[in-house]
């Protein structure tokens, strides 16, 4: 929580410096009120409208990343509407809607879960079969457990994503 405190402290310092009402007797000309300090630190959440990095070698994914228009999340299949590792997600890629699974998150993780520098996603279809054939980026081992739990017998098989992963972390 020290980061939080530091964040508050630094922004309050700014607030105090520039604002004029700290010393009521000497009202200076500058009446700046800082509006853009945040009490919470940067959360790096994956939610609606967040842009995401496609890490498999599917044709659409590669094209989108090459163009500079990465997939954008439009729905998170989660009660909290905030995506983490293993969540299914609806994504727009090159004007199409595709489902995807989150495979790596920038967000601060719990103990023993690796953190990635980018929000990584693997495109899948409704049955859980991935559109690509290989994932070059390391993928957390946690996915094994999550995918197994999510898999519905005789329904969507999400463990297929694990089969194309080349490296686990």
């Amino acid at each position: 929580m020290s980061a939080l405190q530091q964040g508050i402290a630094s922004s309050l310092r700014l607030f105090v410096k520039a604002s004029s009402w700290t010393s009521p007797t000497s009202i200076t000309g500058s009446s700046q009120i800082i509006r853009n300090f945040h009490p919470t630190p940067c959360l790096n959440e994956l939610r609606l409208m967040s842009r995401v990095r496609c890490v498999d070698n599917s044709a659409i994914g590669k094209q989108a990343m090459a163009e500079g228009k990465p997939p954008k999340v439009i729905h998170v299949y989660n009660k909290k509407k905030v995506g983490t590792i293993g969540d299914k997600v609806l994504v727009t890629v090159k004007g199409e809607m595709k489902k995807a699974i989150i495979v790596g998150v920038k967000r601060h993780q719990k103990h023993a879960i690796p953190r990635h520098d980018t929000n990584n996603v693997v495109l899948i279809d409704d049955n859980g079969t991935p559109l690509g054939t290989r994932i070059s980026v390391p993928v957390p081992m946690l996915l094994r457990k999550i995918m197994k739990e999510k898999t519905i017998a005789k329904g969507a098989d999400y463990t297929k994503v694990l089969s194309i992963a080349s490296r686990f972390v």
Partner: protein
Amino acid sequence: MKVGLCAYSAYKIYPGHGKTLVRTDGKVFTFLNGKCERSHLMKRNPRKVTWTVYYRRKHKKGLEEEQQKRRTRRTHKFQRAIVGASLSEIQAKRNMKPEVRKAQREQAIRTAKEQKKATKAVKKAATAPKAAPKVEKAKQKIQKPQQKAAPRVGGKR
């Protein structure tokens, strides 16, 4: 139970400790603690940071048990035979006792003197008697046999 190594400080990471980071290019870093992580993110070179193992290895700190500097090799002096004298001859001359040497020398002087006397006597008889004493003296002075220098043993010249 697998004990990992910190990517920054090379300390051991026991289970239950540490944090992993997967970089965009796919490289994986495991850090022991926030200190290591932050140093790495600040792009501090661990080889310059004194407390890390990499620094200590580079500057060879705390390696007393390791091999010391090899002792310098010494060249051994070695007596060799020369064209004029075989090894045994050289050895004999070298090991000759001073009394023996002196006796030899004196003997050599004596024989040389006698030889010269003989030749002088012959000359005296042949040439004029005036020049005789001068010549004798000069000859006597010059003809002292030189002491043979001790044979050179290897080493510096």
